[in-house]
């Protein structure tokens, strides 16, 4: 097992290297440059040339790439051309926000999706199944943007029971140490802030989790139905075990496998969906960071952050793969 993990981690290096070349090319071939985001309409053609020269952006591409690799080798992820904050600093600020959002979305998607999937499988072809099907369809087909703004309008503007945007009411003056709002409010014993932060998390988590919810629901339903037909389940029922016992000990344990796969894959999708959710809900996370950096042509930021994302994705997939071995003892890695 250890050898397997090491092999996987070493294998990640050429992947990241190749990715860095593709990223670099992609970002530098985009039309435009950072000067418009720096100076807006104040940028005359002369100023533009001056600044590009000062930033080293008029050097040949291969030269810029080699310099970038050198930086990476020193573990320097670079800084933003626009606001001069280092990528490392910015990620430390923004990642906790995105993690809170994606964990919230996952909890929603898994917490609601698995029971819904099981219910649909248990009452297959019944009205429950129909209702769950519709909910899944809506979850996967309504764009997050539409869902998010609609939620905002209904729950914040009309019903006024939930906040419209942000992570927490700034009037509460929460001191941030870990940059996890939920953790920091508990650390300072500020229950009002904790509740406020939870309220702010509800709508964006549901909007972001809508697609994983749909997928997890369907996969759970399919997986449970599948396992239901297995011989060992029929045997268990024939033995006279209660339906609950059959369910928990035999069905769910085996149905988990594909569900866990899907959850692992969803992490990538969640990061993508986070971009839109963070825009709509003014959530200061990494999704928004990437989009702004691309629009601003903030080259180092785009390159470094996406590399970090890729690394995370590789690690998550590794964790999921290892998780299999625990869930299904028949799977062994050598």
């Amino acid at each position: 097992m250890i050898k397997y993990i090491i092999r996987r981690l070493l294998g990640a290096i050429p992947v990241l290297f190749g990715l860095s070349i593709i990223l670099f090319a992609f970002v530098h071939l985009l039309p435009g440059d950072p000067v418009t985001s720096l100076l807006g309409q104040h940028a005359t053609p002369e100023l533009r040339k001056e600044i590009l020269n000062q930033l080293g952006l008029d050097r040949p591409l291969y030269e810029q790439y080699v310099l970038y690799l050198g930086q990476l080798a020193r573990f320097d992820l670079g800084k933003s051309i626009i606001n001069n904050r280092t990528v490392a600093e910015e990620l430390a600020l923004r990642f906790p926000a995105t993690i809170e959002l994606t964990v919230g979305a996952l909890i929603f998607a898994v917490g609601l999706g698995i029971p819904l999937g099981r219910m649909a499988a248990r009452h297959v072809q019944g009205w429950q199944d129909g209702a769950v099907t519709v909910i899944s369809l809506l979850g996967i087909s309504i764009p997050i943007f539409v869902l998010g703004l609609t939620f905002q309008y209904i729950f914040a503007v009309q019903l006024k029971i939930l906040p419209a945007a942000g992570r927490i009411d700034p009037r509460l003056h929460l001191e941030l140490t870990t940059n996890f709002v939920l953790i920091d409010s508990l650390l300072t014993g500020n229950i009002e802030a904790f509740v406020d932060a939870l309220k702010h998390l509800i709508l964006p988590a549901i909007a972001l989790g809508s697609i994983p919810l749909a997928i997890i629901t369907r996969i759970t339903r399919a997986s449970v139905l599948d396992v239901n037909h297995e011989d060992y389940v029929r045997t268990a029922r024939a033995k006279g075990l209660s339906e609950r016992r059959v369910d928990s000990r035999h069905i769910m344990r085996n149905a988990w496998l594909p569900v866990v796969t899907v959850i692992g894959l969803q992490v990538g999708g969640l990061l993508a969906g986070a971009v839109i959710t963070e825009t709509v809900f003014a959530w200061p996370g990494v999704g928004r960071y990437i989009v702004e950096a691309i629009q601003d042509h903030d080259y180092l930021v785009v390159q470094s952050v996406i590399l970090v994302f890729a690394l995370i994705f590789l690690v998550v997939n590794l964790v999921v793969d290892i998780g299999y071995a625990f869930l299904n003892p028949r799977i062994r890695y050598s």
Partner: protein
Amino acid sequence: MTRIRTGAVVAVAAILFAACQGTATTPAPTTAPTTAPASAPASTAPSAAPSAAIKEGGSLVVGLPGDMVLADPSLVSDSNSSYIQTNVIEGLLGVKPGTLSDIVPVLATDMPSVSADGLTYTFKLRQGVKFHDGTDFNADAVVYNYMRQKNAPKALRDAYNYYFGAVFGWAENSNLKSVDKVDDYTVTMTLGHPQSNFIIAQAPLPQFGIQSPTALKAGDADNPDPAKSKYAQGQGTGMVGTGPFKFKEWVPNDHVTIVKNPDYWNKDAMAHLDEVIFKPFADQSAELNSLQSDGGIDLAQTILPNDIASLKSDPNYTVIDRGDSCNYGGLQMNQTHKPFDNLHIRTAIAYAVNKQSYIDAFYAGLAEPADNWMPPATQYYKKLNLPTYDPQKAKDEIAASGLSADQLKLDFYYPSDVARPYMPDPKGLAEAIATDLEAVGFTVTFHTEGWRTGYLADEAVGKFPMWLLGWTCDWPGPDNFLVTAFFHFDGDKPNPEFAYGPPELKAAFDAGLSAPDEATAKAAWEKAQDILATGLPTVPLVHSKPPAASKSYVKGFLGAGNLNEPLWPVWLDK
């Protein structure tokens, strides 16, 4: 099958029910909305609200289109940073709140005296003023602040220290030859040649404000790498000025907080609020939803004209009219592309466009038709009586041009992905203009480019024959519009953007820019405007006033067309 269908119906019904809850609870306005503009007309004193006694205290949360960029005003040129920093940093001169160009002494006790040759300005400084860190404001502080910008490290100049360069230039090329301490409370500034915008360019800009030298040095503010400057990063220090608010904290991408300065030197302009919190929103709809919810923002600094209607009819909100405009939106043309080299054609276009119809359709009426390349509140403005909507005259001009229908094909560029204060809906505006142009005989072909992916870079070098663009003023002076924005010369060569630059225009500009006194300046700038009126190089369309909106308990807010809006007069009626 019926069971699935039943289930589906149940689910859909539940969703529709939830959605309809919204519309059922929309409050119906019962009284006439009290949406009279919260900003008083230009010169009214801020606290002249006769019916309500001002309440002290409270937090105001303001929504902005973007986050602050750096916490050192000398390193930023974006409007969001300036919007925040205007409240904590003051300069020797300032602008009276709610006005565009009423310049008043702030850290100076009077307007400066100027030598007869226009080269030396003498400022008497206010005594007994302290920076937010407790150190004294005096001549040394003024000298330090100006010299650190004049000698800014090369890496900081073009990209970050833009305004100082635009007004004076740097190091040995700077027109600001020296800033000298005469005594603890007297400073002289000496120019290389007279500069008529010396006062009007500096007064509205926090970039020319005075920050505490102690704090600047302690925060490594002059580090050529702003990433390493604690001051610029706003962590633990930054924005240390003399203003009615002081900087408290900045959580990047989340909020900037400024708090009341109880030791502010001007007891007539003390802040009423305890604090102001600025929150950036990337999405306009999200910002509007936040304004309309409980516990969200109290004031949205800029809203789209299309969102006004829903707020105007709701007594819980106030739509704020910003008073005088400080921008320009126009139909730009380049004379290296035919047929724009033909004055009859440009005049025909000027007659063909129905400016008021665009204002009604795209600006919610919050704009005025433009009769000049700068808005009426600009210094030395004069009415030019440019062509107004008259399709018949347009056709006559086309006939007079001698061009055939084949030669009346126009290539029209607009930016595909941006909303600017002077053109909130570029696509809509372009289509409306094209309709008017085609009604008099032109044929229009559209082209678009992305704002950040080429539009600005390409139009600046004259690639576009005809395009939409405008300008929001940096300062309300004629040079900022006519020269900086539009028709500057490089030596004798006109700006390639328009390829228009008769020598008499350059002469008028030179005379205006270096005028040693007001009378000379006025004459020169009026001459420049007359030359432009005759040459009609581009067609001015509108001067707009992008609206703000707030909850109706926000009182005392004074809007300004250039977003120079100190928040000390604001109070909360709740």
